[in-house]
């Protein structure tokens, strides 16, 4: 076994250039550790990006501020109103009258309001914040450095998982703050609040899967995050609009609506807590289709 040294004329230092390398070779630690390990490392790095970059921190601060205002003004007021409605006679409340009676099925009013807010806010946030999964790195050439070390599948799924992890973190933070507010009002609600929060977290993450996957596909296709966001809105509106239009002539086409991410949203808002899981098959199916498409595109794209 030979070990060679690099003599640098610039700083007159002798570096043991390949000693470390030889150790790695002998221990076999520089071999590819496979798809899962690479995906996990990329996912971790994405989370680090959220906390250590100016852009990530700005996003976190904005989210916290926005959530603070939602929590202390519309959410609390709405929760108070909901609590009053709970006391109204069944079927005779205002919410029943406007078709939002499902809100009364929640044991913790704050979580009922959260669920309805989250079904609108988080998909929108996902479209905005998950748009840059690979596009700017590809344009800058940074993906080339990564592509030399990991497979395109690891890169694609690692970034996707990183985006989902960021969503999970924000959902957890916002949900915990909501639980704290609810329990502060009535400590007896702790168990129900935790159960409801767990149901929301799981369902919300499932809801966000196809939106994140859609942004992963678009990010693998276009040149910038802005383009990805614009295309997401265009495609989503076009799909929803064209299917609605066609199905008015040919009702059998109504089933094509299953292709549109968020198709189940209006039905979801009528379900409470763990009931919502019964519609999970729709976003899961959409995610499988979108991720397969994204993988296919990623393999054909030049880095």
């Amino acid at each position, binding site marked *: 076994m*030979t070990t*060679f*040294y*690099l*003599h*640098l*004329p*610039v*700083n007159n*230092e002798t*570096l043991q*250039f*390949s000693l*470390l*390398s*030889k150790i*790695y*070779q002998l221990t076999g*630690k*520089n*071999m*590819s*550790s*496979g*798809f899962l390990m*690479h995906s996990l*490392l*990329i996912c971790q*790095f994405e989370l*680090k*990006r959220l906390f*250590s*970059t*100016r*852009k*990530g921190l700005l996003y976190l601060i904005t989210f916290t501020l926005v959530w603070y205002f939602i929590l202390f003004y519309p959410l609390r007021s709405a929760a108070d109103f909901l609590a009053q409605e709970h006391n109204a006679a069944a079927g005779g409340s205002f919410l029943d009258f406007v078709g939002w009676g499902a809100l009364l099925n929640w044991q913790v009013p704050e979580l009922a309001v959260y669920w309805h807010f989250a079904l609108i806010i988080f998909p929108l946030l996902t479209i905005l914040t998950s748009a840059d999964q690979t596009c700017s*790195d590809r344009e*800058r*050439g*940074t993906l*080339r*450095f*990564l*592509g*030399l*070390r*990991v*497979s*395109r599948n*690891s890169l694609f799924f690692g970034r996707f998982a990183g985006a989902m992890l960021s969503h999970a973190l924000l959902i957890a933070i916002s949900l915990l703050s909501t639980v704290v507010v609810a329990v502060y009002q009535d400590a007896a609600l702790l168990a129900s609040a935790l159960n409801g929060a767990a149901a929301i977290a799981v369902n919300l993450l499932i809801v966000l899967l196809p939106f994140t996957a859609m942004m992963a596909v678009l990010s693998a296709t276009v040149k910038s995050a802005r383009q990805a966001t614009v295309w997401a809105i265009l495609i989503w509106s076009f799909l929803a609009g064209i299917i609605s239009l066609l199905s008015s002539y040919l009702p059998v086409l109504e089933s094509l609506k299953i292709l549109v991410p968020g198709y189940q949203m209006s039905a979801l808002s009528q379900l409470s807590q763990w009931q919502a899981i019964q519609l999970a098959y729709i976003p899961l199916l959409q995610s499988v289709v979108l991720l397969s498409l994204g993988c296919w595109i990623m*393999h*054909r794209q*030049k*880095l």
Partner: protein
Amino acid sequence: MTTPIIQCHHLSYSYTGKTALSDVGFNVLAGEPVGLVGPNGAGKTTLLSLLCGFLPVSSGTLTLFGHKPGAAVLSGKVSALPQDARLDPALTIGEQLRFYARLQGLTTKQATNEAIRVLDAVSLNDSFKLKPDTLSHGMAKRVAIAQALIGSPELILLDEPTAGLDPVNTRNIRSIITELSPATTFIISSHDLTELGRLCQKILLLENGLMSSMQLNASEHNSPTRFITLQMEPSPAVEVIEKFKQLKGVIQVSNPQKNEYIVQYNPDIEAKMDLQVLGCIADNGWQYRQLSQGKTLEEKLFFDGE
């Protein structure tokens, strides 16, 4: 017989109608650096991109260590300096190099040490905590070279490694290549033929998407005629050519560029032609800058038939 680390057969690549590579075939054995030269648009970067797996191989076969380019098994074994690739401006250089090392299978501590080591190698040890945007073009190029040195790659593909570097750092990069060879095989794409002439024994020439190869120094030793290339201080060209032609054994004298002369001679008639030429220069009171045996790489590659 040693198996080539790169095997390429009938490789073609086109960009929407424009042929970049046409039926290219070559093998590279592990060992000494290989130069890749050719005019602008000849297909050098396309070939390196195919070797790195950045572009999909659509026609022909190409394998590195028996695997398709971009295969996960090549992680850590093949590295590259891609053309115009930049690090993420949002994260520090150290964080990114450490991340690349982690992807190559190193532990967190090893990865940190490795990032420091490669930055030291390119004389950028103070840049660990800097953001890429704060670096000049040359420094960014050196960081990109540093990432190619992470771990113990067996094959490193360098696209224009010294373009934009100052002379001191060009020399430093040359030292790194020399020290790591032949344990690591380098393929170096460059327009700097002097640099390639110093580093490489084998040259791959790409022209109009077609490839030919040349083993340096081999052809001249077997040839019945040899060459001397002479760089002169300003001198009367007609007179210089006339005087050189009168030397015993000289077959032909050409003047490809101002103050540069190529003397073709028969070594069987005069083996020590360099001494004869120097004597002639001294006798006539001329001055010379440089005398070298053989033709320059530029002459060999691009003007041999003229």
